């Protein structure tokens, strides 16, 4: 028997087969129990022949394995070629975060980046936390039962997140850098521009040597993070009983970039919220020494910003939970 010839025939037949079945047949023929090679091996009587035959067997088994892998790969490729990649994929139900949660997280993340803690505060509040501690005059219209939801004469649904300032200062000592976000309430009949509950964010910083310049820089950073570089911030005189001086702040109009358009009433500015230096009277109520500590607070409404940036015409849509709306975000 010429084993070299046997081997080269076997290799040739492995190479010629094109399917796994033919390859299995070839294997049986050349390497199977009844193949000449296996029979030969069984009948070997001397060491030299045994080694030689074994070497042939190993060579053929390797070649077989290699060819087997090659055919398998080929079969997979062929299978893949039948794939119609233009057919739609498996349909997975995709959920969405509500646009208000999306903006809430964005705001939280900016504050986290600024080294602020996010504090959860309550919505049902005492009149003291909502008005008295913030020096709201007894004659301020916001105290009116027409404007505020009262539970009883001493308890109400908070009208602003500024209550969070008081809750935090009651519990800790400066330095304080916090933001608090959540639901607030005013007794408004639902309309495209007003809903009886809405969302605010309030930020408070109390430290040594805080100035209105620090407030302006913080606002600038915040709004550039929110609306993009190139936004500018301006502060205007205003009045809040718990800040002195009080300002309102505007941001470069996001539609016209300050050029003036109907959206910003041709001012180039878009009104954002209220702010100021924390009034020393508030510090005194909290037991902080106003000669040592100073601070700023600012707040704004989230619903209006979310509506404006997504072009939502009616903020009641935020509460309707219509999937045709929610699924757009």
């Amino acid at each position, binding site marked *: 028997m010429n084993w070299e010839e046997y081997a080269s025939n076997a290799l040739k037949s492995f190479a010629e087969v094109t399917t796994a079945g033919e390859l299995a047949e070839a294997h049986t023929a050349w390497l199977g129990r009844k193949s000449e090679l296996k029979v030969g091996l069984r009948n070997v009587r001397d060491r030299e022949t045994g080694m030689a035959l074994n070497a042939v067997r190993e060579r053929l088994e390797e070649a077989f394995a290699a060819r087997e892998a090659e055919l398998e790969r080929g079969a997979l490729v062929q299978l893949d070629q039948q794939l119609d990649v233009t057919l739609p994929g498996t349909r997975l139900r995709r*959920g969405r975060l509500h646009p208000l949660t999306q903006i809430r997280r964005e705001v939280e993340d900016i504050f*986290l980046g600024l080294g602020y803690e996010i504090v959860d505060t309550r919505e049902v509040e005492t009149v003291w936390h909502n008005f008295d501690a913030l020096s709201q005059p007894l004659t301020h219209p916001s105290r009116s039962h027409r404007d505020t939801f009262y539970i009883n004469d001493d308890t109400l649904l908070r009208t602003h997140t500024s209550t969070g300032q008081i809750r935090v200062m009651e519990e800790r000592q400066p330095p304080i850098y916090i933001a608090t976000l959540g639901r607030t309430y005013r007794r408004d009949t639902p309309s495209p521009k007003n809903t*009886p509950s809405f969302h605010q964010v309030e930020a408070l910083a109390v430290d040594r040597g805080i100035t209105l*310049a620090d407030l*302006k820089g913080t606002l600038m950073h915040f709004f550039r993070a929110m609306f993009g570089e190139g936004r500018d911030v301006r*502060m205007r005189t205003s009045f809040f009983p718990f800040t*002195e001086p009080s300002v309102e702040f505007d941001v470069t109009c996001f539609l016209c970039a300050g050029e003036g358009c109907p959206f910003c009433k041709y001012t180039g500015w878009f009104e954002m919220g209220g702010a100021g230096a924390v009034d020393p009277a508030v510090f005194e109520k909290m037991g902080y020494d106003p000669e040592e500590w100073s601070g700023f607070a600012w707040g704004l409404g989230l619903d209006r910003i979310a509506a404006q940036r997504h072009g939502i015409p009616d903020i009641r849509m935020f509460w309707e939970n219509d999937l045709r709306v929610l699924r757009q975000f």
Partner: protein
Amino acid sequence: MKVPISWLREYVPIEMPIAELADRLVMSTCEVDGIEAVGVADVDGNLGLFRVGRVLDAVKHPNADRLQLCQVDVGAGNPRQIVCGAWNFGAGATVGVALPGAVLPNGLQLEQRKVRGELSDGMILAEDEIELGTDHSGIMLLPNGLEPGTPLADVLPLTETVLELETSHNRPDLLAVYGIAREVAALYDLELTPPPGTDPQRDADEPVDVTIEDFEACPRYIGRLFRGATIGPSPVWLRARLLAAGMRPISNVVDITNYVMLALGNPLHAFDYAKLAGGKIVVRRAKPGEKLRTLDGVERELESYDLMIADADRSVALAGIMGGEETEIGDGTTEILLEAANFDPYAIFRTSERLRLRTEGSNRWEKGVDPYLPEQAAKLAAQLIVELAGASWVGHADVHAGLPEPPVVRFRPERTDAVLGIETPPDEQHAILGRLEFGVRGEMVSVPTWRARDVTREIDVVEEVARFRLGDVPARLPTRQAMFGRLSKHQRIRRRIEDVLVGFGYAEAYTWTLVPEESEIVAVRLQEPLSSEQAVLRTSLTEGLLASARRNVDAGNDDIALFEQAHVYLPTGEQLPEERWRVGGIAQGGFAFAKGTIEGLYAALNVKPSFQSADDLPAAGRGARTDEGWVASVREPELPGEWGAFELDVDALVDRVPDLIVYEDVITYPPVRQDLAFVVSDEVTAGELVAAAREAAGHELREMSAFDVYRGGQVEPGKKSIAFSVTFQSSDRTLTDEDAAELRNRIVSALERAFGAQLRA
């Protein structure tokens, strides 16, 4: 506050464009709502088309009984023929004429045209047509002697620019044209005229009987008596100013009280003196059961804290808010008692708030008006009453119990620098305060009376300087000694909950805090709800989610899955309810989908749930409780198909989330996996079987979960087969086949003992 610019110019010489003035006010003083042009538009020579005319001839229109045909001299050229519908004039009258091409304030452009066959070459004007009044009963007659052809704008305030300001609660001094002028003078360092009003000649010194019973509520009352007044319309200039400032002219004396309020900021009232019983004014609180019919015709029931103006017998006005009908100035009034008083903000606010009655007067009083102001207001009003109503001033009383000294405050200019973060030289700061009429004496600053309520402390003085320098403040960031930028565990887990549910296909919903009242649920109730639909604070998220699901079904949406994570408000018996975070969801796909959701959620939080059957759940279907909440199927007609819902207490869940996950060995000792199927009675639950198996096999039973339930066929009626996939694994050795068989036998015999369960081969 609407400020007619021509009126403002009477007190301060402004030359800058009004838009620039508005920008300056916005930065330093108050909001500007707009700049409005009222009256005849001053564009493209339009004003020149309004002229003085003299009627040369007026006869009935040949083809119309109700029209006059007039020949009118308007200066240049031949007389013009004008058709006119009014009959309150004839030949010789001096009138205002608009020529063809003129644009009226309402936008209408006149043209030459024929009226019933006769040419009409212009229009004779009534006062309402040029926004100088509200009268349209006849044309406006001008004083004789004016030269025909004179521009009408030289004779009448035809055109006006109005600045609309929104002032803040702490600046009642800005609710007056003179107050705005004072502010503008300070901003631009301009010269301000003295306040308007000088006392006229007093013709007699009759006593005026004024008594104040409550000086706290009414610190001051000036009463002035006038006789021989003639009530009639106000002159055009006065009516034009009131209209431009947003008030309706009524009659001369009433208009004067409004005019003085707008000019100086002190609301006034005029009584028909003849109707005041005993000729007396008493300022007192309302008597029990007392009532008053106010000027608006409404009968008001009074409370004992309401501050009243009374005469000898009864109340005649709600102090500071509205006069009474009985003592109102009427056409026949000849004797007038003018009130220039000062009232306490809260006294007025409390009553106007209860009566839901806000007026121009109450709006000023509730912010606090300068008690020194009534004097000047009385002067201006007296001057005008004498001039315009031909009255003589015959009596005066000024009752008060001493007026408060304006505050004197210590002021360190370096405090301003510390607040603003920029330096302003002390001289400049003192100069700004001087322009605002603060008196600076060394470290002490005295506050002008009209700012005495708002400026009482050093920081308030700082703000006065600061508002002049706001535009110069640079942007910096605080120098930090401590950082706090991290979410709490609770906040991180809330985000994870949201993200997991979004991953499971849920869209996030926001539903109202306020829900309808339900008799069986104890909830926190509002004192005055907007509607019965929003009467109490929710104690569960489920109702809101159900409503949202129904709305989506109605809208024809499919694949509905909604969740919300928010507060519920649980009554505690204390003042404040407990606000707990909950997460709730509702979805198509029935109980199995809802349960799969919360199983996935628990798994994502590394918390093991235990489910107990329950049929008393809020969503009304059958379901299960866990320690943190529930999951149930939803059965209601508005939600066709299979629905499931759940609600979990987030605070309770968070408590169970491990702070740290400790590695468990999954590699060293291999698991042994088997499938076991048991035949049990229909009422036995998978959960019960698993619980019993765990009990029997101990901790080496790593996992056991049902993957198939089968009824019918080879299983006898009333029974079912439940198949479990089971994993045995030990943390300290490799389990042998014998170990696995032993565990399995323990489970089989335990389930057989407890439930009669038969292992299926």
